[in-house]
């Protein structure tokens, strides 16, 4: 591996501010990132882990309670067949979007700033998709036969029903998870090899050695690696768009007013990127502070994410308004009522929570000072995710609770089990994320090194050098 002896040079590349600040060299980066997987974790980690694993335990207990008694322990009722579990599912799938977007799409577009955040964003994606997969699994009435949704050959020649968007979901989300996992793992290989080389104990060396697949850093390895990474990025890119489109089909394919909308696929994808970036921001603002990597994940990174949040938030807000326009334009009473009911019905509070969190708050990012204010970014990132949770609540519950026949209108009340299950899913997510922080390099060291000025000593990327 290369090492850096001279820390003095920081060469600006064009007008772009440096991606890595603090005059860090190659070794500093290795040291900064790897160090955290090798030392005892800080006490903050232990406290966070205690809380999140407790929430995880709550989740497991509640799932057992659910399986023992039935779906009735939740608030779902007759018009509202899908309640919080599906809201949570769409919420987590949405969060699971940012990672692959950052790794694949930004990679293809040569957005080099992605290198600082892509590893943790991808990890977050995987864990969010795990949370997402949990909900449709446990929300079915007879979980013990959930495997009937898979096209398994059987003597009855009984196949799943391929017309159902739920089945498309099964495929879309599981493919997305598989590809994301492989993509993440491939990106990890050089860094795991670094950890292996730094390992002091024999067991650590063996485990890391096993995971690094015999990586030696040879030129041939790098060539194959780069090619694989590019191909996987190309493979993952359509998935980023397809997963949430397919999730939106669950609603768009139906005939319920408020669901039956062709705008859903792009609107869901924009919303997913929106919430995903917000979640990345929430996590990294804490992690960069605790792990002291502000020089790698810089204010510039956060600002770029804030801009993406601003753009996608505005797109989502545009979609909200378009829905209203189309409802009015359609002249269909049921459509019109469905949207009127969102804004003025018994759940108007949820609707306006969604509107203000998703459309209003991100608009503050037009102001550069606020884009670069850590407290403001942190608060807004959380607000955005609250808003996006409510967006799914608005779509799922408000549309269902009053549809065509006023005789079957009803109201949805979540139970304590609903609330704690959502909290428990955060426990699952955070537990996995904390374990990731503890054992794996949270920044893609090899990739960050590529964007250091030292990697480009001849200014190849710069046409006119002064």
């Amino acid at each position, binding site marked *: 591996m290369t090492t850096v002896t001279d820390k003095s040079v920081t060469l600006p590349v064009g007008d772009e501010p440096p991606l890595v600040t603090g005059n860090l060299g190659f070794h500093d980066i290795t040291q900064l990132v790897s160090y955290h997987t090798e030392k005892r974790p800080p006490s903050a980690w232990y406290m966070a882990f205690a809380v999140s694993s407790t929430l995880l335990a709550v989740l497991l207990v509640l799932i*057992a*309670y659910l399986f*023992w*008694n*039935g*779906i*009735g*322990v939740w*608030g*779902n*009722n*007759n*018009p*509202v*067949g*899908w309640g919080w579990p599906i809201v949570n599912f769409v919420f987590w799938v949405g969060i699971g979007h940012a990672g692959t977007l950052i790794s694949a799409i930004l990679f293809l577009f040569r957005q080099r700033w992605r290198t600082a955040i892509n590893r943790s964003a991808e990890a977050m994606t995987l864990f969010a998709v795990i949370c997402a997969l949990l909900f*449709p699994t446990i*929300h*079915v*009435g*007879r*979980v013990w*036969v*959930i495997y*009937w*949704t898979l096209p398994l050959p059987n003597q009855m020649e*009984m*196949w*799943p*029903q391929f*017309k*159902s*968007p*739920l*089945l498309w979901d*099964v495929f879309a989300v599981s493919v997305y998870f598989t590809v994301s996992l492989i993509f993440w793992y491939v990106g990890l290989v050089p860094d795991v090899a670094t950890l292996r080389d730094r390992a002091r104990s024999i067991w650590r060396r063996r485990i890391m050695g096993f995971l690094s697949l015999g990586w030696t850093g040879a030129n041939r390895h790098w060539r194959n690696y780069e090619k694989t990474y590019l191909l996987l990025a190309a493979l993952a890119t359509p998935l980023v768009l397809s997963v949430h489109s397919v999730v939106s089909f*669950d609603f768009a*394919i*139906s*005939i*319920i007013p408020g669901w039956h909308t062709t705008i859903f696929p792009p609107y869901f994808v924009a919303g997913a990127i929106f919430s995903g970036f917000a979640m990345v921001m929430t996590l990294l603002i804490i992690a960069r502070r605790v792990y002291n990597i502000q020089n790698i994940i810089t204010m510039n990174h956060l600002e770029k994410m804030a801009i993406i949040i601003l753009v996608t938030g505005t797109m989502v807000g545009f979609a909200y308004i378009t829905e209203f326009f189309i409802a009015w334009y359609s002249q269909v*009473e*049921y459509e019109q*009522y469905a949207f009127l009911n969102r804004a003025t019905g*018994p759940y108007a509070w949820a609707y306006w929570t969604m509107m203000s969190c998703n459309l209003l708050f991100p608009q503050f990012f037009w102001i550069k000072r606020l884009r670069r204010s850590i407290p403001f970014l942190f608060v807004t990132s959380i607000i955005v995710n609250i808003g996006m949770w409510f967006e799914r609540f608005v779509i799922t519950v408000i549309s*269902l609770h009053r*549809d*065509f*026949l*006023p*005789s*079957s*209108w*009803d*109201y*949805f*009340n979540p139970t304590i089990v609903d609330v704690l299950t959502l909290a428990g899913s955060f426990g699952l997510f955070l537990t996995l994320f904390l374990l990731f922080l503890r054992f794996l390099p949270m920044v893609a060291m090899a990739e960050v090194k590529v964007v250091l000025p030292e990697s480009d000593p001849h200014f190849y990327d710069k046409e006119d050098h002064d």
Partner: protein
Amino acid sequence: MMISLPIVDSPEAVRPERLWRSPAHLRQDPDFVESSREEFMPGASNPPSGSRRHFLQLLGASMALGGLAACRRPVEHVMPFADRPEELIPGVPLRYATAMPLRGVVQPLVVKSNDGRPTKIEGNAQHPGGTGSTGVFEQASLLTLYDPDRSRVLLRNGTATSWDDFLSLCQRLQLGSRRVAVLAAPTSSPTMARLRAELEAAFPQTNWLEYRAEGIDAEALGIESAFGVPYRPVYHFDRADVIVSLDADFLGPTARNFRHNTRRFAAGRRLHEGKNTMSRLYVAESAYSSTGLMADHRRRMTSGRVSELAAELAVALGLRQGDSPGAFARQLAGELQAAQGSGIVLAGESQPAEVHALCAAINQALDAIGQTVDLLNTAAGAATQPQALAALVSDMRDGLVDVLLMMGVNPVYDAPANLSFSDALERVSDSIHVGLHVDETAQRSTWHVPAAHFLESWGDGRTWDGTLTPIQPLIAPLYEGARSHSEILGALASGTFTRSYDQVRATWQPVLGTDDFETAWHRVLHDGYLADTGYDTIIPYGAALTGSVPPSPGGLELVLRLDPTVLDGSFANNAWCQELPDPITKIVWDNVAIMSPATARELDVASTYRKGRYVADVVTLSANGQQIDLPVWVLPGHPDHSVSVSLGYGRNIATTRPERKTPIWDTDDKTDVYAKGSIATGIGANAYLLRDALARPVASGLQVTKTGRTWTIVTTQDHGVLDVEARPLVRMATLSEYQEDPEFALAHEAPTPGSDEKTRFEDYPTLWEDRHPEDSPAFRDSDYWQNQWGMVIDLNTCTGCNACVVACQAENNIQVVGKTEVGNGRELHWLRIDRYFLSDDGLEVSDDPQMVVQPMPCQHCENAPCESVCPVAATVHSPDGTNQMIYNRCIGTRYCANNCPYKVRRFNYYNWSKTIPETVRMAQNPDVTIRFRGVMEKCSFCVQRIRSAQKNAGLEKRQLHRDEVVTACQQACPAEAITFGDLNDPGSRVSRERKNPRRYTMLAELNIRPRVSYLARVRNPGVIPEDSA
């Protein structure tokens, strides 16, 4: 083939010590004491010695005897209705004709029995006094048979005793001359009449009082005062042009001749096959009723005001002198006079006898009697006077009654509180209560004898028209101690026990003649009636009009009514009835004080919709010196200055079932309606208490005070005003509009895109496939597709009486979920009746809206939106065009329910079937799957009936007969509003009904092609006078 049934253990009867087995036992001989320690005779309990063959013989014998001991089929000869009696094929149900005593007459029935268990009740269509239909109570009486809270053993002062003990009481009573009093529910049974005569012969001082929980029979008293004899009226609404109901809910499920009334009324309203005129119904009423919602013109007014209207009407018709009548009365009089013999005026049970007398006189003056009103001479004695009960109670208090027999009545619960019946009951040395439950009266009587259910015992009776009808049992009494009323009465009269079978036969011997009694008897049992035994009709001479209608006292009025779901309280312990939504308010599991919005504002009380439930103020109602607390229900259309309360709630029924207690991780104790004591106990408040000593249903001077407490009320539907223009779900027009444009219902339809205006959505091409993919193998290889099932529901005749809802529940094993879970929106009724308010002034919620009802089963869409979204193909289309639910394939994603625009799919949120009590399990229809937790369910068009008919046709190598398949809802419907059948057969009733110009389908613009069509409603309002009458 022996049929064994689960035997329900009864607590061991306590053997009194004075009974002895032998003189040795009495003397306590040492030898006897020695031998009695052994359970069996010497050697009997030792293992058999000897050969293997001997062992096997004993084994076989014990098996055979053991099987015999478990046999619960009735030992008497019962005659199957349709199938041959000698061949009971396991799994193939038999049907027997029988009858149900209800409100003083019997309702002719045909009951289905599966392997010895009655499982479904239907009307006896061949009976001259029947219609083939059933009401709520006939259907629900099946669950009463299997009620797990039924009393199981004789009780003497609250402790279990034996029938012999009771019989020895009867023998003792024979010795002295006792003063016997009998409080008995009205009965039409000739056997009971014969035994009553025997009792009166044995005890000359017998005081027999017919006791009705709801109070005296004002109709009988009124007609008696008009004609001298309490004739029984039969109304032929089909022949009437103008019907004026003065607070008479003759179409309500509680009406005594409900099925006949509804059938005849519907016949007069049905617009089909060229008929385009119909009757006009005026209703002036003191509560919103089923009749009120069918009215062409409805006036809400207090009960006292209705009486005044009756008097005004008499003046306007020139029957009486009086102040000049109001415009409404003059309008009615004018129409009635124009209609002459085809007008009907009738008064309701809440009206005093004087109003009934007036109605009788008006009908006679209009020449309606003999044309639209028949008067039957029932040969009953004089009508019971209102003071009779008070006199009896005073006798009891004075110690003038030695023995009080209470049969099928519950006076401790429902006698007027001012009479202090239960105090007087303590002065009676031998009070004997006979009933199905250890109810309020049973708990205070010295004796309680469990009554046999009518499906467990022999009996007889007369239908409303007088036709003699036998009651034959379908099962031996579930509980050892249960005896029929006639057996108990017979024992009391004679001191000996005679089986009801012999009693009934003895009554029928002289009727059928002794020559060939057995043949005639079997014929009667088979048919379920004896032909030509109806009462004679009478056309009496001039009516006497003596009494005058008392003036309306003003102030707040309280009107007490029989409940359309639990009747007088006798169905209060029936979970089906408790969960049945009230036809008007849609409230389940509760009793409320109903008042108008204006009255509620005046009293500063409200019932507020909050998060799917109603939070109602609890008020104290005080009348006649008594008070009860009830939650308020604000009902638009209810008259101002009046409060309506249902009777039959606030019960206290003892049960021996243990309370269900489950660990913290298990919710069974919260979801099982049978978990906490008896069903009825603790629901609502007892409104009987508020009546005066004469048990009048109306009390004036009601005081209402707010308690400050609130109570959660659960409905299956919240208040909703239907904007007919925007949501044309229930379509309607006036008669003249209909005559101008019979296809008015289609005017509401959205235009079909991309085609000419004549194309209906039903003919519109679909996106993906042909209407019936007849060339696909699934269809081609199946014979089923030769029938295509469809349904038509006529909104012009449906009264929303709920009979179909209970019939569906009984047929399809629909579980009861309880108040909390209905509040959570998890009720399981496959068929619901939607109720909407309609305001003349657009969407404003008026205080006096119209009301419409619409039965809503699964619409069996041809392009079913539920089918395309199921990921596992658990809901699919059958070749015969029904949307089928495959329970064992369902994984419970609930996507289908979300995507159903009619929201008719029901999900099993909990494992409801796990906690059904053992007796209630016997009520389940074996032809329908019991659904497990986590699966979806919904109306199947009674697919089990379709397949069973097809199977029989296949076995008999024939085509299905026309209209052979009848769904449960259709069969029950007293109005014949539901038509079901094969659309491929152009001659079937449903095909003919589908040609009705009023036909439309719900939400046709979604292009889902529902197989259920509705016939739009037509009102015949006429010219309405301006003043408020």
